[in-house]
């Protein structure tokens, strides 16, 4: 039933519900009405019958009293006018039947009289008639009395015809009313239902249209502002959204399609070109394979060559060290002048050969990618000044002015590899000096790029040498080439220096180049980059507050030299007035003095000549105005040595060129009256130590052993020798040494392992013997490895007396 109902449409459901409600309401109403009416009808029928009975009873009373049955029967016969009365009986006082009436149309009914007999009809008391209403009929029994004396009774039986008529009429009315109501409610419902079902049907139709045609433009008419109206609105809104989305999807789809088409055609085109390319590539590949094989062969042979060269250089260096060591020992053995000269030439030649070997070794290292740069803080100016100190004498001996134009505005402290940087400067400046016979060589620098991470500095070395022809300018940086092969004969040099410089500048992320005019000189430039470093506290700058402003008079004909002097003194807040000869000097001095001023000092470059310098110093103008202590001479170390033999110039302060900030600073302090020695030259003095120190040299190479032994014994040490780590450990167990020189690369047991074992054994005893590593070439990684193994310091081979003294002072000095 429920399933059947569920299958109905909404409108049919509504109809069914409405009909059920209407019919049940109607049935209830009519049922109540009919039952009320039925009771009323029954009452009426009974009352009617009772009243008939009483009339008859009254009329028949006399007949009963006078025993007149005939009259009684006649009276009873009057009941004929009431058709529903079927039977009537009159009883006398004794209860016997007195008179009787049976309707002509009476139905056969047996139980009439027995009703009274059986006691179903009670003898009525107090005048009220007894009524029985049953399905068989209506029975009334009433007494008959005359003047309050009961003289008999009457019984009447009536059929239910009246009641049945009422019932059928009621049924008919109910049926008709039901039918009419049913039809009317159906009519009304079918009208009203459309208010509800129409929107639903519209919605349903719209939904199926949308589903079937995918037509999102459909809109449903809104009928009323009820839930269905809201549903319709929501549906419309949803459709709109769906439509938009659909349109968007369509658009996307179309775009995609177009794109796919485009791509496809592009791909086809690309495919075609790709096929062509592949064809070409195959051919190219074949060619490349062939050339690659060739290249491989070439590379292998080049590598082998480089390897051979490196090995050769290394192997050559050891005997070279031996030669040089022995030659320097020989020169200290009190030779004749001629002998000393021969030994000197031999030593210089050996040195040149060693330099050549070192360059070859460096180049091959760089080419094999084995060169690793250090990354430690150093002062650029110090490095340059160090190099200038080395090469200075060779320039000044030729009469070439060597100047470093110091600029205190530039950063000097950087992080980098000072050794390689010095090598670079040494090679370029050395090269410039080599090809310059008069004039000057000047180095200046400028920062081209500066940030927190990088500082790039461009150095320029200007000379007044022979210059380089344009067509060979690039060639000079190539291996073993010089501008003119004849120059080698004339100026010497290996031709490897510039090549090494180019490789070094590349390593330092820079470049190198040259500008030149043949016959007038060249300017070599190179730029390298460092990591910036904060300047250290021990700056050699003087506090400006400490100094009083000074003005010095300078006699110098060389502009380069004057410029360098000016730059250095500027750094210490000293002003220089430069004059070029004695005439100018006197006039300048005179005008200065006459204007009430004076100079705080006089600097004379000995390049003007010793005689003129003496003349100037001894002149009245100078003598009157400038104190003896305020006169400074400047020149090369050689000049200084010569000045010491001059009876006039002997007494004056000397500022050695090439200039160093250290020298200038001391000089300025002296002029200021602050007592500080003008220490121009580092004394290289062999110092005899009081008690004899025991030294162990561990070295596998016999030549090196001999060199080391000779040098150390000449310095007054007791030297023992060991050929490898094992021997050294044995000796160290037997005897106590003050210091150990340990070679790193040795057969049997190398220096690192030997040191490590020695340190382990040494842990037991309280003392610690310093171990100094001896390395052929100090590399960035080597030193760290030495320190890790437990060594204390290192020294580069071949030994130089100065370095040995430094080591001795540091580790076993007083």
């Amino acid at each position, binding site marked *: 039933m429920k399933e059947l109902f569920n299958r109905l449409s909404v409108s049919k459901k509504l109809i069914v519900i409405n009909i059920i409600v209407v019919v049940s309401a109607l049935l209830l109403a009519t049922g109540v009405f009919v039952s009320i009416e039925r009771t009323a009808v029954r009452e009426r029928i009974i009352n009617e019958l009772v009243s008939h009975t009483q009339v008859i009873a009254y009329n028949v009373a*006399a007949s009963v009293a*006078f025993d007149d049955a005939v*009259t009684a029967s006649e009276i009873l016969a009057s009941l004929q006018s009431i058709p529903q009365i079927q039977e009537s009986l009159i009883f006398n006082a004794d209860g016997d039947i007195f008179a009787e009436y049976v309707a002509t149309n009476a139905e056969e009914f047996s139980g009439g009289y027995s009703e009274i007999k059986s006691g179903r009809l009670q003898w009525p008391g107090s005048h009220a008639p007894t009524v029985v209403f049953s399905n068989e009929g209506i029975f009334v029994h009433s007494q008959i009395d005359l003047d309050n004396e009961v003289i008999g009774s009457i019984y009447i039986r009536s059929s239910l015809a009246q009641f049945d008529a009422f019932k059928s009429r009621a049924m008919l009315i109910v049926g008709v009313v039901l039918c009419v109501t049913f039809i009317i409610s159906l009519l009304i419902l079918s009208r009203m239902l459309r208010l509800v079902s129409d929107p639903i049907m519209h919605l349903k139709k719209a939904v199926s249209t949308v589903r079937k045609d995918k037509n999102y433009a459909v809109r449903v008419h809104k009928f009323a502002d009820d839930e269905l109206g809201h549903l319709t609105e929501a549906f419309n809104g949803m459709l709109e959204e769906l439509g938009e989305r659909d349109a968007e999807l369509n658009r996307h789809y179309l775009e995609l399609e177009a794109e796919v088409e485009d791509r496809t055609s592009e791909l086809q085109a690309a495919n075609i070109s790709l096929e062509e390319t592949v064809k070409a590539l195959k051919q190219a590949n074949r060619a490349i394979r062939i050339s690659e094989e060739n290249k491989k062969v070439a590379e292998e042979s080049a590598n082998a060559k480089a390897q051979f060269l490196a090995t050769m250089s290394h192997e050559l260096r050891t005997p070279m060290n031996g030669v040089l060591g022995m030659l320097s020992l020989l020169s200290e053995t009190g030779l004749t002048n001629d002998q000393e000269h021969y030994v000197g030439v031999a030593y210089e030649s050996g040195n040149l050969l060693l330099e050549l070997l070192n360059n070859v070794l460096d180049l091959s290292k760089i080419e094999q990618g084995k060169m690793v740069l250090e990354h430690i803080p150093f002062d650029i100016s110090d490095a340059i000044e160090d190099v200038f100190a080395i090469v200075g004498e060779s320039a000044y001996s030729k009469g070439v002015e060597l100047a470093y134009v110091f600029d205190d505005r530039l950063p000097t402290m950087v992080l980098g590899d000072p050794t390689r940087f010095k090598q670079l400067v040494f090679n370029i400046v050395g090269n410039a000096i080599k090809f310059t016979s008069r004039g000057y060589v000047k180095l200046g620098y400028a920062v081209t790029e500066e940030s927190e991470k990088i500082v790039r500095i461009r150095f320029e070395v200007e000379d007044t040498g022979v210059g380089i022809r344009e067509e060979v300018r690039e060639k000079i940086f190539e291996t073993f080439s010089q501008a003119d092969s004849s120059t080698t004969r004339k100026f010497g040099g290996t031709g490897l220096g510039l090549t090494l410089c180019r490789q070094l500048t590349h390593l330092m992320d820079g470049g190198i180049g040259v500008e030149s005019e043949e016959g007038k000189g060249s300017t070599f430039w190179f730029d390298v980059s460092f990591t910036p470093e904060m300047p250290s506290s021990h700056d050699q700058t003087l506090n400006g507050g400490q100094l009083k402003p000074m003005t010095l008079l300078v006699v110098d004909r060389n502009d380069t030299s004057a410029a360098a002097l000016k730059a250095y003194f500027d750094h210490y807040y000293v002003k220089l007035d430069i004059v070029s000869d004695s005439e100018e000097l006197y006039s300048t001095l005179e005008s200065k003095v006459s204007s009430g001023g004076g100079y705080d000092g006089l600097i004379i470059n000995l390049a003007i000549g010793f005689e003129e310098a003496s003349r100037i110093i001894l002149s009245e103008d100078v003598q009157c105005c400038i104190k003896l202590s305020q006169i400074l001479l400047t020149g090369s170390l050689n000049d200084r040595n010569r000045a010491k033999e001059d009876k006039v110039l002997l007494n004056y302060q000397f500022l050695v060129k090439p200039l160093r900030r250290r020298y200038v600073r001391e000089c300025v302090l002296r002029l200021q009256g602050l007592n500080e020695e003008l220490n121009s030259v580092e004394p290289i003095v062999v110092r005899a130590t009081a008690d004899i120190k025991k030294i162990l040299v561990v070295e596998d190479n016999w030549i090196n052993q001999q060199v080391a032994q000779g040098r150390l014994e000449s310095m007054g040490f007791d030297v023992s020798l060991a050929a490898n780590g094992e021997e050294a450990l044995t000796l160290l167990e037997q005897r106590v040494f003050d210091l150990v020189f340990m070679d790193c690369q040795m057969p049997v047991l190398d220096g690192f392992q030997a040191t490590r074992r020695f340190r382990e054994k040494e842990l037991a005893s309280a003392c610690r013997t310093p171990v100094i590593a001896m390395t052929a070439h100090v590399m960035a990684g080597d030193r760290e490895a030495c320190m890790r193994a437990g060594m204390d310091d290192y020294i580069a081979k071949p030994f130089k007396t100065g370095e040995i003294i430094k080591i001795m002072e540091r580790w076993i000095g007083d």
Partner: protein
Amino acid sequence: MAVLVALSLPVRSAIAEIDAPDKLKAAYILSFAKLISWPQDVLPSKNANLVFCAAASESLTNELRNHSGKSIQGHRVQIVALGKRGDSLGCHIVYIDPQHSFRWFERVKRMKGQLWVGEEEGFINKGGVINFYIDGEKLRFEISVEHAKNSSLDISSRLLNLAKIVDSVKGGAKQ
């Protein structure tokens, strides 16, 4: 139809002497009282007795006396035996049997509110109101409406329906 039959019967049996049980007659007489209304002045209140006077045989009088004390129309029934006395004053119903009728009608005059009941032929003509007669086996009675009116008595139609109505004036005058 019964009336017609009743009308014809007395003519046939008028001569025959009425010989009916006295008990039935007494009951009839009492029933007559139930169906007749007396004038207000004769029977003024409920306290007044309804006086039955009998100028009849001892047996009938005794039968009437059995009903004495009963209540009819709210009045107590009182039975008075007249005997040979002709004084009927105070009587509401007087029964006169044939033995007493001769002397009765000689000295007694009609009285207002007095119902005369008899049982002989010609009783109505003599001035009676209700007269018994035998119709076959059945005791029946005849009534003179005129005489009743003369006596100021109102007889119920229910009683009249059962009786043979006789026109005593016409009939009596002619005879």
